């Protein structure tokens, strides 16, 4: 039986539903992965023949689901209800799956720890003093704890893959445009996509195929035209000594050894333009964010003062009270790089670097079917900025934001447990090469399936 099938009676069977509710409550006290959750009553679920009939899942709270709030982890949207449902979620609902809750995140998806959520703290299920990663930290933590078999996240620069790595689950960032962004609260429109956190490769694949598809509401969606799923050669990124923590370096070696053992042709690769990835990425991301977040002004919805002298004052107060520091920083950065007379120096140049990186990757994919690279240079770190400052956390996005810059798919795969903490490894394929990622990940899953944190249970499942 597929792992996901065990979830189909969790909500429909009264005894199981009761145990499940207790299980979720217990974990939530420890990890705080969900900002809001509600289980439908057993008798009230419409029977469905869909492939994910009655399977509960969580959705990152920057994706719209009618009937739930849409806080984006921000004070400015704390009480805003979604007036519609995102296309990706609606596609999943058609397969019978049920949204059980909204997952915590770094405010508007800006961060790598979920500590930037203005509403709640989310802990890593393996060690509650550590972060779950981010920005889809709530989604990854909920899956790792066994609260849901999968959760939707969003990936702008690694926001699905990095927390998946930190929590020991699979995290897929699909090819840009293959999954509709309609309903995804925009942070950096040209970089981001809805992604999947799941416990198994099979579930990841099932959910990916359920959410993807051309969408009349998103003109940037493209037809999914899969490349051959066959994988023979894996390019392994050469990582400079000292750029990874000891644990991550060790884990990376283990994954490489596994590839050799499984019979793949392993080839060391280098991406010279890699050193420009982070600055170019943050230039584009913040520029787009400065426009995308301008709509939050307290006028039509969201936090606003009770009284203001003028519409301009109302906007100013709302934004000042409603946005957190990281969000304000990125809006200011984006405004700075777009200002008149400086576009060539920043935004236009970043777009050129983006083209350069894409060309280098195209070249690599002419003789590698997939490439392997780290997810993040460290294992899950402690809450706060004592181990990695906000700036260092941005520099550490180098391995993940690569796929966002090129539009390629990327998959974080559990690699090892180091000192009890999960460490992941990442695979990238050319655009529409998702099946190649699943091929490699499935082979590795047999060697090392997603680990289970202490307290993990499946007793209430079929």
């Amino acid at each position, binding site marked *: 039986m597929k792992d996901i099938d065990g979830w189909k009676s969790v909500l429909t069977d009264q005894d199981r539903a009761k145990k499940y509710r207790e299980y979720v409550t217990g974990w939530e006290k420890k990890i705080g992965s969900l900002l809001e959750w509600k289980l439908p009553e057993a008798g009230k679920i419409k029977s469905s023949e869909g492939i994910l009939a009655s399977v509960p899942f969580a959705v990152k709270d920057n994706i719209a689901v009618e009937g739930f709030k849409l806080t984006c982890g921000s004070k400015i949207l704390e009480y805003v209800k979604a007036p*519609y449902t995102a296309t990706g979620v609606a596609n999943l609902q058609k397969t019978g799956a049920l949204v059980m809750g909204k997952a915590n995140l770094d405010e508007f998806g800006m961060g790598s720890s979920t500590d930037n959520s203005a509403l709640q703290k989310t802990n890593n299920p393996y060690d509650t003093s550590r972060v779950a990663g981010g920005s889809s930290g709530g989604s990854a933590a909920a899956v790792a704890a066994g609260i849901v078999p999968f959760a939707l996240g969003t990936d702008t620069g690694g926001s699905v893959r990095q927390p998946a790595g930190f929590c020991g689950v699979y995290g897929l960032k699909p090819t840009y445009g293959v999954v509709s962004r309609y309903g995804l609260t925009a942070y950096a429109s040209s970089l981001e996509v809805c992604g999947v956190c799941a416990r198994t490769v099979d579930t990841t694949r099932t959910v990916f195929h359920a959410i993807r598809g051309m969408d009349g509401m998103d*003109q940037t969606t493209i037809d999914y035209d899969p490349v051959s799923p066959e994988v023979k050669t894996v390019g392994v990124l050469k990582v400079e000594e000292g750029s990874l923590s000891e644990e991550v370096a060790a884990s990376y070696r283990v994954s490489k050894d596994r590839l050799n053992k499984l019979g793949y042709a392993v080839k060391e690769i280098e991406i010279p333009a890699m050193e420009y990835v982070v600055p170019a990425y943050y230039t584009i991301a913040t520029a787009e964010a400065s426009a995308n977040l301008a*709509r939050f002004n307290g006028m039509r919805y969201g936090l606003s003062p009770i009284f203001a002298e003028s519409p301009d004052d109302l906007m100013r107060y709302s934004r000042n009270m409603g946005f957190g520091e990281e969000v304000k920083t990125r809006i200011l950065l984006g405004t700075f790089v777009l200002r008149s007379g400086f576009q060539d120096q920043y935004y236009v140049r970043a777009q050129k670097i983006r083209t350069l990186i894409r060309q280098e990757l195209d070249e690599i994919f002419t003789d590698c079917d997939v490439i392997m690279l780290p997810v993040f240079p460290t294992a899950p770190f402690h809450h706060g900025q004592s181990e990695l400052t906000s700036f260092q956390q941005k520099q550490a996005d180098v391995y993940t934001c690569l796929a966002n810059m090129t539009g390629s798919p990327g998959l974080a795969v559990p690699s090892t447990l180091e000192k009890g903490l999960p460490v992941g490894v990442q695979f990238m394929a050319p655009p529409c090469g998702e099946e190649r990622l699943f091929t490699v990940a499935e082979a590795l899953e047999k060697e090392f399936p997603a680990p289970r944190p202490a307290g993990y249970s499946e007793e209430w499942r079929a």
Partner: protein
Amino acid sequence: MSDTMVNDKYETFVGLEIHIHLLTESKMFCGCKANYGDEPNTNVCPVCLGYPGVLPTVNQKAMKMGYTVARALNCRLSRKTYFERKNYFYPDMPKNYQISQFQEPVGVEGFMEFEYNDEIKKIRIHDVHLEEDAGKMIHAGDMSLQDFNRAGYPLLEIVTEPDLKSGEETEAFLRAFRRMVRYLGVCDGNMDEGSMKCDANISINTPGAGLGTKVELKNMNSPRFVRRGLQYEAQRQAKALDEGVKLIQETRLWNENRDITESMRTKEMANDYRYFPEPDMPPFCPDDSFMADVEKEQVELPLARKHKIMRKYGISSEQAEFIHDEKVNADYFEQVMALGADAQAVYTWLSSDVQKELNLLNMTLTESPLSPERFSELLKLMDDGKISGKIAKQVLIDVFEEDRDPSAIVEEKGLSQISDPQAIGAVIEKVMAANEEVVKAIREGEQKQKGFLVGQIMKETGGRAAPALVQKILSEKLR
């Protein structure tokens, strides 16, 4: 004083930014009805309210209209046009950026010809670009309310080069422009209702010195106000230069109550729009079939139409001006002419009695019961002497009121002209018998009184007696 020179000293340069609301059924980037006069906030959805997570989808019809106008303005049409975000905060702009076009608009480098003082003038068009409108603020007491029905309404902006030379010429250009967009069927051109708006850039300088310091004028809600605003501004600038005052680049508002312009903001306070390509929509690359459709949308433009009408039907410039003002009227005119009619008669009737009836019933010619066939029939009844001009006027009113053919009305009401000399003679004798005193006075030389008898005869026949015959027979009988 020369028309184009301010105080015989300065040359004027005027460029326009014209915004037109496109006549589409839905908004620019969502499916909401484009009907902003409805109950506030009824034609809105998450997309045009700028809710989190929504994305724009381009209105294909608006895109086609944009290309249609750009083509009519002789622009170079883009084969890969794209939208950009124009960033600025405005309380009634839901996203706080406007989706507009900047680097690659639908059309660039065009021109438009129009007639001014019997001369054909050519104004260069800088570009034609598509964008979306904002909502509306309503200030009530100490509150500010917002209506988002207009938010996301498709707008087309046409930017001219500073080729206009005076307020008068600009007014004439605007009227010609308005006529053109109405001919193309893309906008109703109502400036007072805001479906067409115009901002003007004006500078003056000594002849040969090129452009002066540019002032942008806003808030002029009719072609007349545009003229007056520009005239005021040219004089204000001339006075400043005469007095050696340095002009500053600024935006000024036309105050229609005080007939002056007032400073709104200077260049230092201007927004930095931080344009960048809209990542939510791919570029639009029109294919050959789209371009063929744009060609099909082209119509004979007003200026060409006017001159054709003058040539073909031998009417004056002034008459053609009236006939070609609205495309439907020009079409109507030509349809009547095709059925066989005299151009002068058609013009005279259209510009007087028909127009009067239309105004009275608040109708347009095309929606009126007076089809070209009925109109032509009415003229023919007159030509053939079946009815007099006076009766024809009555029949016209009846056509409007009863929605029937003129011939049916004439027949049923017995309105056809009496042209039998014997019948008329009998009536004349009856009237003469009843007015012996008058007859006697006329015979004694008081010719003035003859008119009274004619009046009595017409009254007796219900106006149907052929006037020429009445005159002739009456004179004979009075001898």
